């Protein structure tokens, strides 16, 4: 079965502006998105808002892995989030929104969650 992708995509920056294994914040409308480029070249996009502190800082966390899961640790109190699902691995009841993200012609585009 084929689904039509009807999401709206917003171009945010050139892919090579993203430093490997480091995050960057982007402003999409009035929403703050945290973009992460992992070691394997993949790009992930989560809400930039750390749900534990309420501050818009997740993009400034340390990127790494837990087992095979690509992760970011909140720079505020170090809770670790799954970059693919937004679920907090330390407190699985908490998750942050995941945005669609793709790279077209060397440009990173983000869609609504």
């Amino acid at each position, binding site marked *: 079965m084929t689904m039509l992708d009807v999401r709206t995509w917003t171009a*945010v*920056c050139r892919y090579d*502006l*993203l*430093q*490997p*294994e*480091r995050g*960057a*914040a*982007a*402003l999409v409308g*009035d929403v*703050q998105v945290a*973009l992460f480029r*992992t*070691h394997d070249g993949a790009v992930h996009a989560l809400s930039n*808002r750390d749900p534990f*502190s*309420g*501050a*818009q*800082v997740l993009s*400034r*966390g*340390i*990127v*790494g*892995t*837990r*087992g095979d899961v*690509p*992760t970011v*640790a909140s*720079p*505020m109190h*170090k809770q*670790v989030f799954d970059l693919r699902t937004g679920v907090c691995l330390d407190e699985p009841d908490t998750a942050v929104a995941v945005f669609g993200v793709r790279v077209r012609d060397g440009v990173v585009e983000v869609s609504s969650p």
Partner: protein
Amino acid sequence: MSTNHQRTLVVVGNGMVGQRLVEALRQRDPQRRWRITVLAEEPRPAYDRVALTSYLTGTSAADLSVVPDGCYDDDCVLHLADPVDHLDRDARTVTTASGRVVAYDALVVATGSVPFVPPVPGADLDGCFVYRTIEDLDAIRDRAADTGSGVVVGGGLLGLEAANALLSLGVRTSVVEFAPRLMPAQVDQGGGEVLRRKIQELGLEARLATATERIEAADGGLRMVFADGSSLDTGLVVFSAGIRPRDELARSSGLEVGERGGIVVDDGCRTADPAIWAIGECALVRGRVYGLVAPGYDMAEVVADRLVGGDAVFAEADTSTKLKLLGVDVASFGDAHGATPDALEVVYADPVAGVYKKLVVTDDAAELLGGVLVGDASAYAALRTMVGRPLTDTPERLLMAGPATSDLGDDAQVCSCQNVTAGSIRGAIRDQGCADVAGIKACTRAGTVCGSCVPLIKTLLTQSGVVASTALCEHFDLSRAELFDVVRATELRTFSEIIAGHGRGRGCDICKPAIASILASLGAGHILDGEQATLQDTNDQFLANIQRDGTYSVVPRVPGGELTPEKLIVIGEVARDFGLYTKITGGQRIDLLGARVEQLPAIWRRLVDAGFESGHAYGKALRTVKSCVGSTWCRYGVQDSTSLAIMMELRYRGLRAPHKIKCGVSGCARECAEARGKDFGVIASENGWNLYVGGNGGFRPRHAELFASDLSTQELVRLVDRFMMFYVRTADRLQRTAAWIEALTDEHGDGLAYLRRVLVDDELGICADLDAALERHVGSYTDEWAAVLADEEKLGRFVSFVNAPDAPDPSIRFVTERGQIRPATPVSGDGPPVVAGPTLEVVR
């Protein structure tokens, strides 16, 4: 649950031994046939009197408590501050000071002892103290705050402990001892002499063979007059010349007491009255009063057993002791004085190194009887367990190297305080899965009182093949120190190379900053160069300290806290122009808060142009060297503390370490720079500098301990260089110097002594390497912020949004409070939010 069949036990006294009885009986009497009432004189439940001195160096009264949670309930009641003052043996009741009358079926007297105060005139003057309770220590501390000098009467174990406490309060201390040597009960003349020399080096004056004749009030202080006519002026006097059993209940009720005091009991610790028992320091058992906690615990166990129908007896007690006095290890065990007929003594003495060791053996040198160790007691735990056994080696070799731990039989006693054998510990490892010292402590109680057997427990753990994991995280099996050595030896200088060669996965918030710190300590360039930038915590990433709302604070370096008016004005102007909140820090500098990521370069451009540089408030690195104005201005100062602090701050600035490092320099013993609360603290003396190490404030405050005294500036810097670099190389991640030294103590017996051997005597042969590494650091230092401002690529990362580099984060809101901004929290709701300060920087 109370039942009619219950009998009542009354325990008089809630010291360590009385408390032990309660716990031992509770354990043996699960049906609660005994109801327990404890009547205590002190206002707080039992606390660890062995560790009392630590109360003066930051341990709280609550930390010292030895009463487990849930110990007291309906069937087991503790009344504090209500001493028993009358015993009616006929009626089987006791009456307390408050008039409470309690009937008993069995009575255990555990009233302990009082310090002996010699009957010299003036011993009751203001400023004379004893050293036994937390209240005594509070009073001594109050007095010490107003005086510079103190005298301890008594050079025994407790006297030296009290002297140690006075020194830790910054008081110039003398010890007056009647006998011709220190610790006459434990060590012989040779050991006493080594001990005297060692502690004299550390600033403690010892007057031996001296009798005090009287004490007089003089010039607002006290004057001690001695039998030889000489005198000594002092601010306070502490009597610590032995103990006297608290046996007055026995005396007033007609129970037999010893000639020199002590309630006479039989081997079962029972008095002539079958309903009454006595345990601990108030009891005279086998013709002797024991002033140590271990025999007291044994007595408590004996009585608990008897109360439930057992027939335990108190055996000959082990009076072995090991303690660290002023950094000097002193231990004696078994027949330390060679009292056994025809005993032979084998002595090793090195007066230069301050080491004295003696073994007492049988006349055929086949069996160990006892010994004395001063200056190096590392072999104590193993030697003590061998007393009464055949020697496993020649006495000479045992003296030099100590016995091998594999020689320990299962019945060898490892912990004498809690009477735990090597076999029990091996059993706990094998059957109960204990894998570390904490587990052994919980399972067997070994090592929970004086702690001197902890190195032996560690050895047993290692021998059993149980090794506590020191792995950094799931990505590295190595500890931080091991990783440091690997990186240093292999010259791998990127995270990717290091994790590919020695780890797995792509790292995490634990190993990445740890490796970033190691690389920085090894001088691998700017911390934001290349891949290193991705390893940094957000503070190091933006060279500023993140705050609760995602803004950052800026702290320029102010070496030694010295700041010109021009620079002060620049800080004020920057804060005003960027609308930042300003506050003075505890480290004598100024914190500018509320800066957004994209503002940091412009703020720092202004600061760097004015001559400021990074203060590394964001880094696990040297923070500040706090100082007083010293001899330059202060009428009390004896050395130029400000110049030294500035020199040291400039020398060590930027050095990345396992944790932050804080320092202080005080220009006299009044210690206004609070140097003893720092990782290393320097206090001026008339003859130079005294170096203290291992202090910190924070969650668990610790006073730094004296490492070396009367150093020249050059000697001081050399020692601090080595201390810093050795800490950087070998400490665990996020381990402050205090915890690092504690870990060294667990591993090597006495952390400070070990550090002296490594950093002063160069026992490991690494001092030249440490010196060179520190010189490399000094030579390669550059200001991190100036380097960022000169590098467009690094500057490009200081943006709020990758697609809107200068747009302020709209979620950051401030309100004003007392004329400055603060984060607008959801609960505040006061005043209108402002997005930034009154004026914004418009020109770069």
